[in-house]
């Protein structure tokens, strides 16, 4: 059951080997992996849109979509049909070539990064030696696409949104990458497959996932905050703050191109959540040895769904930050915190086994959190807000 998809692919390739010439087989194999990745994650995109709209609706005390299909669960299909048949409007003053290329350039890296994510035992498209570097290198290309979209639209809201988005993505990329470095330091490899293997053992009750160590826990929280900011989601959704910038950098896009921006945003979110699972939550490993009979890919997608619900919950709960708060948070809290987290990981490695390393590593993380958190609020005169509710 665990290897069902791997076995299926091998069986199909074995059947095709009798018909096709030998040089075509690697191409077909790659195409099959690509088709599977696109199919699965596009379906997940549809599931997430409906989950998000219904979940946000519940948080905001309303129903959410409930007209198409049972409980409105066919709403994504209706949305997709609408996006495809809508007219594609390009502004007259727009830079036509760049305007057309931007959504394409945005979607390609969003799909490429999945090639190094291990979504199950033996289920990784390419096992790169420098897989983590590949993930961040390809992901960095999306910043340029965002700028292309905003600049080519010839719209001041689009341009302002793009500049905000690029500045935010550049700022939060540093804590995103540095928080993964602590895992790389401990495992000594950049390959996601090997990082998952390093977390496959069990120590007592808890599995050896990095989230159950002081530095890993802090790293995971910092990673998820940066991931949230990288994906431009609330509370970091200033680039598309509706009350200020209409829709940010994709204001001037319509029809299918608009859907592509939406798709790229969610694909990026899944990819970075998948990376968080791979690095901190044990990848496709089961939490208890007794549960090993459940297929590995099922664990991966269960964890992914859990993180998606967490993202929706965050979006529904927290208010949007201001630009200066966003930048202060990145440069005065996140970056010092990830650097101190590296020290905590080093202490974990060098103090040796037992209780001592829990104490030393935990003290470094907790002490710096208290000091930096106090520094962030210092002199702001922030007091506890009181609310008055309607009776």
């Amino acid at each position, binding site marked *: 059951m665990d290897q069902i998809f791997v076995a299926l692919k091998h069986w199909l390739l074995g059947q095709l080997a009798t018909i096709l010439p030998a040089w075509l087989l690697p191409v077909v194999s790659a195409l099959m992996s690509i088709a599977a990745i696109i199919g699965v994650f596009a379906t997940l995109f549809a599931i997430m849109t409906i989950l998000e709209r219904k979940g946000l609706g519940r948080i905001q005390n309303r129903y959410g979509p409930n007209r198409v299909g049972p409980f409105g669960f066919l709403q994504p299909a209706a949305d997709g049909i609408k996006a495809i048949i809508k007219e594609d409007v390009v502004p007259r003053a727009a830079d036509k070539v*760049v305007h057309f290329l931007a959504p394409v350039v945005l979607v390609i890296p969003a799909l490429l990064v999945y090639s190094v994510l291990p979504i199950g035992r033996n289920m990784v498209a390419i096992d790169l*030696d420098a897989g983590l570097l590949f993930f961040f290198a390809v992901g960095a290309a999306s910043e340029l696409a965002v700028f292309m979209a905003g600049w080519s639209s010839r719209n001041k809201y689009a341009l302002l949104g793009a500049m905000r988005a*690029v500045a935010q993505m550049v700022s939060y990329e540093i804590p995103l990458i540095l928080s993964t470095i602590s895992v790389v330091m401990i495992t000594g490899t950049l390959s996601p497959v090997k990082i998952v293997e390093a977390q496959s053992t069990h120590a007592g009750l808890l599995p050896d996932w990095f989230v159950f160590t002081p530095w890993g826990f802090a790293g995971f929280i910092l990673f998820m905050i940066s991931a949230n900011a990288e994906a431009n989601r609330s509370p970091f959704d200033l680039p598309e703050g509706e009350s200020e910038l209409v829709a940010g950098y994709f204001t001037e896009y319509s029809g299918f191109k608009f859907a592509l921006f939406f798709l790229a945003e969610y694909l990026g979110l899944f990819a970075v959540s998948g990376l968080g699972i791979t690095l901190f939550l044990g990848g496709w490993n089961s939490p208890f040895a007794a549960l090993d009979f459940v297929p590995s890919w099922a664990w991966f997608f269960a964890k992914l769904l859990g993180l998606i619900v967490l993202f929706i919950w965050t979006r529904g709960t927290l208010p949007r930050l201001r630009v200066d708060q966003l930048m202060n948070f990145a440069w005065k809290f996140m970056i010092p915190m990830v650097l101190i987290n590296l020290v905590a990981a080093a202490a974990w490695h060098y103090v040796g086994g037992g209780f001592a390393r829990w104490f030393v590593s935990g003290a470094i993380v907790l002490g710096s959190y208290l000091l930096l958190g106090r520094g962030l609020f210092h002199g702001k005169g922030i007091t506890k807000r009181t609310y008055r509710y309607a009776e």
Partner: protein
Amino acid sequence: MTPPFAVIAVLTIAAAVAAMTLRNLVHSALAIAVAFIGLAATYLQLNAQFVGLTQILVYVGAVAILIVFAILLTRGGEAPEKSVFSLSWIWGVLVTLAVFATLVWAIKHSFVVERETSVTAPEANVQQIGQALMTRFVLPLEVIGLLLTAALVGAVIIAMKEESVKAKIEDGRSKMDEPANPSSILHPPSSRGGQR
């Protein structure tokens, strides 16, 4: 010459030429990003995986973005009406031709150029690079760390708007042409697009 190398080489050269000749600065910046990606592909083809990926991360993810920001901050988002080439462009072309001719002559007369690759591709995995960085090349690594810190501080100081320094330099100049608030620096191109 293998077909992948030919395709990558033609793409890289075309992107580099486009970057140097296009009138619109933003188009130039996007073309140079394509040229950087082409060079990264060449590195990957030469088995230098780590360097190729670093090239994409640093050049496309950071340098290209930096260039684009600088273009918008200096209001260069529109193609100029005048010629984009310098007054002394003819001398530039002559110097370039001379340099290129010298390089080609040197390559033609070198004895190493006909060397084929060794049968076994050289290994350069991340672990070996890390070992080398921490043993034989540890001093350059520290120096580059110092350089990057100095560059960070220097760039901030140069680009920072310091009121006292500005007042000294801009003595006698009108202060009206200074942008009033930071958001107006971002020269929205729509103002020009609307006039067409």
